[in-house]
């Protein structure tokens, strides 16, 4: 057991932040970045080695470090699906069909399609179906859909949850833009009408892959929210130490000192729990999925709380469009909603506690082993 980041992980963290500072506009301008900037940043991240094949050595910890940096810079790239799907497939990389291996080895971008109109984030809401290698159904809020080459679609296969990989420009795939609170996380509705699938996972294998996919996705969006919250809080702290009212800097008021201390606790503990859950996933610890749920449940509310508190520190200026505060808030809210909000994960954890008691065992939710 070793609870500290390695030197390589620290280096990766610093390097990605440096890369983003050079390749991406500052927070207040990030929303204006167009396809050119987005594509250029994506290429830099690929070159950096963030998007490797399914046999990549990048673990959930490294990917969460990257996601945190992306959230902090409000970068707009399809990282989530591209690295999430590769990470989920890593344990079965050796047995993948050749075509899929080639796809993953290349720099292709992917996006995850799970949510359906009127449904939630659990598998029970999935109605899309694969029959004879053709996918039919509707998915909602698929991020970056027009700019990715492939969609990883959670669908019913042979009566059970499965995962289909579909080309986003395949005949029968129709993408319709949806409104998104955060313009830097564009969302689309994806309709599939007997669209041809490139690869499909079913039965037990699919269950394992989907579990891992949902866990890594929840952690990546949590890490992005942590990054965004960290940055808005840093800006608020700096502002409070400079802004003067009543003849003194506002940060010297106990009311604000204590508010900011509480925000620090939320911020720091959010990152600790995300990192711990990422390590649990990397180590293949049983119940790593529940640990990911703990992290996502906590960060979903905590990141928002940090954003709210920071906006309060800024006062009126943070309510203006030109101030970047709302850009961070928007990113945080969208990431909160993706892959299960606090309520979703609390329900899941609560059911696990009840199931543990029902099994006449000691409740087994979340242990270090």
């Amino acid at each position, binding site marked *: *057991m*070793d*609870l*500290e*980041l*390695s030197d390589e*992980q620290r280096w990766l963290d610093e390097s990605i932040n440096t890369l983003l500072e050079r390749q991406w506009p500052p927070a207040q301008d990030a929303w204006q970045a167009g396809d050119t900037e987005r594509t250029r940043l994506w290429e830099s991240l690929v070159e950096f080695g963030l998007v490797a094949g399914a046999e990549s050595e990048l673990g959930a*910890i490294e990917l969460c470090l990257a996601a945190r940096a992306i959230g902090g810079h409000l970068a707009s790239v399809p990282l989530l699906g591209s690295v999430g799907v590769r990470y989920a497939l890593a344990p079965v990389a050796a047995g993948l069909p050749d075509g899929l291996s080639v796809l993953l080895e290349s720099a292709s971008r992917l996006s995850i399609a799970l949510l359906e109109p009127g449904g939630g984030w659990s598998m029970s809401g999935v109605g899309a179906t694969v029959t004879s290698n053709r996918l039919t159904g509707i998915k909602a809020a698929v991020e970056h859909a027009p700019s990715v080459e492939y969609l990883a679609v959670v669908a019913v296969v042979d009566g059970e949850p499965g995962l289909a990989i579909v080309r986003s420009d395949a005949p029968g795939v129709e993408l319709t833009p949806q409104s998104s609170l955060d313009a830097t996380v564009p969302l689309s509705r994806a309709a599939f009408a007997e669209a041809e699938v490139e690869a499909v996972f079913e039965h037990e294998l699919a269950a394992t892959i989907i579990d891992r996919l949902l866990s890594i996705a929840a952690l990546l969006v949590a890490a992005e929210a942590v990054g965004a919250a960290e940055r808005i809080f840093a800006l608020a*702290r700096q502002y*409070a*130490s400079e802004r003067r009212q009543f003849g*003194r*800097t506002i*940060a*010297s*008021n*106990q009311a*604000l*000192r*204590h508010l*900011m*201390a*509480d925000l*620090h*606790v939320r911020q*720091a*503990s959010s990152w*600790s*729990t995300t*990192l*711990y*859950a990422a*390590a*649990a996933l990397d*180590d293949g*610890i049983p119940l790593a999925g529940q*640990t990911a749920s*703990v992290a996502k*449940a*906590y960060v979903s509310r905590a990141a928002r709380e940090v954003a709210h508190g920071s906006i309060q520190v800024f006062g009126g200026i943070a309510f203006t469009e030109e101030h970047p505060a709302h850009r961070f808030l928007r990113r945080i809210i969208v990431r909160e909603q993706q892959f299960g909000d606090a*309520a979703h*994960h*609390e*329900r*899941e*954890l*609560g*059911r696990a*506690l*009840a199931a*543990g*008691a*029902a099994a006449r065992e*000691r*409740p087994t*939710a*979340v*242990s*270090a*082993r």
Partner: protein
Amino acid sequence: MQLTETASERALAEEVRAFLARAGLRSEELPHGLDERMAVLRDWQAACHAAGFVGRAWPAEFGGGGRPPAEQIVVDQELAAAGAPEFVNIVGLGVLGPSLLRFGNDEQRKRYIPTILSADEIWCQGFSEPEAGSDLASLRTRATEDGDTFVINGQKTWVSWGQYAPLCGVLARTDGSVARHRGISMLIVDMSTPGVEVRPMTQITGHAEFSEVFFEDVVVPRENLLGELGDGWKIAMYTLGHERGTAALPRQVKLRTWLDRAVSVAARRELDGHPVLDSPEAQTALARALVRIEVLRHHAYQTVGEFLSGGAVGAESSSVKLLMAEAEQELAATALEIFGPTLLDGDADDDAENDFWYETYLYSRAASVYGGTRQIQRDIIADRILNLPKE
């Protein structure tokens, strides 16, 4: 970062499980009366120490295990999973032991550390005074040098385990002529010394876990000075850091056993004809408490690893302290809310269970006061982590 246990950690976990199968003790089995409970808890810590599970990362030459800090986490985890109670010498293990290791001389360490680990000698701490609570540096208890001795006069309060402890770490003013922080020293006081009077104070729980302690011309040999003269404040801050940080590890273990207990009670109690645990609201409330406890554990692991073995304590321990109070208070309030009317109408068996939850709830109110109030922790974070200007 790697959570998977190494081969030796796995072996240790096996060893703890084997020990528990042979000689395990569950929190529910503890007697309710404080005196009886103390006796059982001392035997429990002694047995765990004999097995090598207490002070696993403390130096071997003083009776510790001399092993990497992670091993203590492995042990704590196994004990928690089995519902075992926490170690009773909590002030010795979490507070004064680490200070002795850091600031004590070898003679002091040889004399005191082994019996802290074995629970042969329970420790208490004499810090707060009636007029010196959050403003600890204003303390008035005086230790006057007299040849090879100090003579202590004054009064301490909120002295946890005072009536069970043969030894006390006392903060006293040894120099009234310098700035208030600088004139304070830390003395180890034998509680059987003439002039020491312990008056147990009954808490809102009905138990008398803490005391007032009065010192009247109490003579303490000079060799009982911890560190140098005037080091008291520095030691106290280090000590309190430990109380906040290191103590979170056994505390989160205990909170986890309480959560598990709440889940099993919710599974067997009925409300309106259905088990409490069947209600989605109860499940969600328990899940929220679980999240708080888990986050406390994860943040404590990130924060305390380095000082489990006696390293420096960072200000981040104040964050851990805030999370600890939050988790405990949320769990206790959750129990009250989900058990609801069943708390008012228990049969004889359930009465004991109801008492436990009422006591746990009442006790939880102390969590944001002891070891530095929630407001003091926020001040520490604002000053030392966020570097915000002072008022």
